[in-house]
């Protein structure tokens, strides 16, 4: 039916058309966030993360040296600011510890169930998507370290994104600025509920505001825990501008300095019994110690 060359040409075209159709199918699955692609993503993460970590080491080293050089040039002013911060933070630490102990005692008296408390894992940023179509990073912590899909990621103090793909020792984090990011938020002061929507620029937008007329520049944008993914009260940013009913937000996180991130790992609820002795450690851990009933009775 076919001569030699003609046969291979037809086979080649058939393979090309199959590849094109496969690409279309994957695009449709990807666009609809089909979970069947998740295993492929996990395999890609597990293979690429160690290679990226090793090959990216010189780049991270260079970045760190450049950052240190910049700080060295401004050492005196930097040192002065740090001293001031230390004095201020020491005062706040005392206040925080006193309040935490007082809070714990009041909770014990009222038999309250504590809101889920959190553990933290620190991970290094080893990869970056590159920017034009996606705002995501790769970190060197995964399932083996207790990370779960949806785990919230912070820089020092502010929420920067959540885990969307998970490997054994690596995870992909979609940043709050990514076009696929939707975070339920609350504006304070004013208690205005809204949705923070990323658009791949440095200024995500607020939509579906509960009280649009009460939004003012400078209001703090915090996570609201609606939907249950983000814990309540994590800083996201501040209202930057209001133009033509578009509310733009400046993220609190400094993405330029982002080398390490903190992952917020949720723990189970802790119910306080009335006869328990409550211990609040300096690191914020809360422990219950049951009184020795029998021994006391005797």
């Amino acid at each position: 039916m076919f001569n030699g060359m003609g046969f291979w040409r037809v086979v080649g075209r058939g393979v090309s058309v199959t590849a094109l159709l496969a690409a279309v199918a994957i695009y449709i699955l990807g666009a609809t966030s089909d979970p069947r692609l998740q295993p492929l993503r996990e395999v890609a993460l597990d293979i690429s993360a160690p290679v990226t970590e090793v090959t990216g080491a010189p780049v991270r080293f260079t970045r760190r040296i450049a950052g240190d050089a910049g700080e060295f040039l401004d050492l005196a002013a930097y040192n002065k600011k740090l001293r001031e911060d230390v004095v201020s933070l020491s005062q706040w630490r005392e206040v925080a510890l006193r309040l935490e102990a007082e809070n714990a005692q009041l909770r014990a008296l009222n038999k309250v169930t504590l809101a889920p408390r959190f553990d933290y894992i620190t991970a290094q940023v080893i990869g970056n998507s590159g920017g034009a179509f996606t705002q995501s990073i790769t970190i060197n912590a995964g399932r083996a370290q207790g990370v779960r899909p949806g785990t919230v990621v912070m820089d020092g103090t502010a929420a920067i994104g959540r885990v969307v793909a998970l490997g054994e020792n690596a995870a992909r984090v979609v940043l709050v600025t990514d076009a696929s990011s939707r975070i339920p938020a609350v504006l304070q002061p004013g208690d205005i509920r809204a949705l923070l929507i990323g658009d791949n620029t440095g200024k995500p937008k607020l939509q579906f505001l509960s009280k649009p007329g009460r939004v003012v520049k400078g209001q703090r944008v915090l996570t609201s825990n609606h939907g249950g993914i983000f814990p309540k009260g994590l800083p996201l940013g501040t209202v930057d501008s209001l133009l033509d009913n578009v509310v733009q937000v400046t993220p609190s996180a400094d993405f330029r300095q982002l080398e390490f991130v903190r992952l917020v790992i949720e723990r189970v609820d802790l119910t306080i019994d009335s006869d328990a002795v409550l211990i609040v450690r300096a690191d914020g851990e809360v422990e219950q110690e049951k009184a020795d009933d029998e021994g006391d009775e005797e």
Partner: protein
Amino acid sequence: MKAVWSSIWALALVLVTCGVAIVLTNIAMGVGPNSTPWPRFSVIVVFFWMLHRPEIMAVPMVFAVGLAQDLVLGDIPGAGVLALVLASMMMMRWTVALRTMPLVWRWIGFAGFAALVFALEWVLTAAARLMLPPLELVLVQGGMTFLMYPVISVAMRQILRIGRTPTRSL
């Protein structure tokens, strides 16, 4: 036997360079919205091999590279693959003519290929997310990829010579 080894060597070279290109694109030079987009090295490498090893960098291989790139970079799976596959199918006829031309012409040919890839991916991403991705970021990334082509191309031609016998390289 020599031809078989030569083919295996060429295939290994294509796979390794494509892998390195994807990893390089994924390295964290800067993070987040304020960082400058980094060149898409995989687009450069695919075009280079389309010119120099078209029998290996055929549509199925372009598909494999595109899929690996999408999965590693965390883009919408399929958007990068489809953009690369469609662009390579459109450019396939031109690459035959470009193969023997000087670097400047190949660079111009690459500009067309890269423009096609980025434009298609922009449209596909916009369609998937029902939101227009910021055009300036795409232009910056496309521009950086375009500027990197001669450097990568010259370096890869040197690598390509390693596997050839002295008589052929002359």
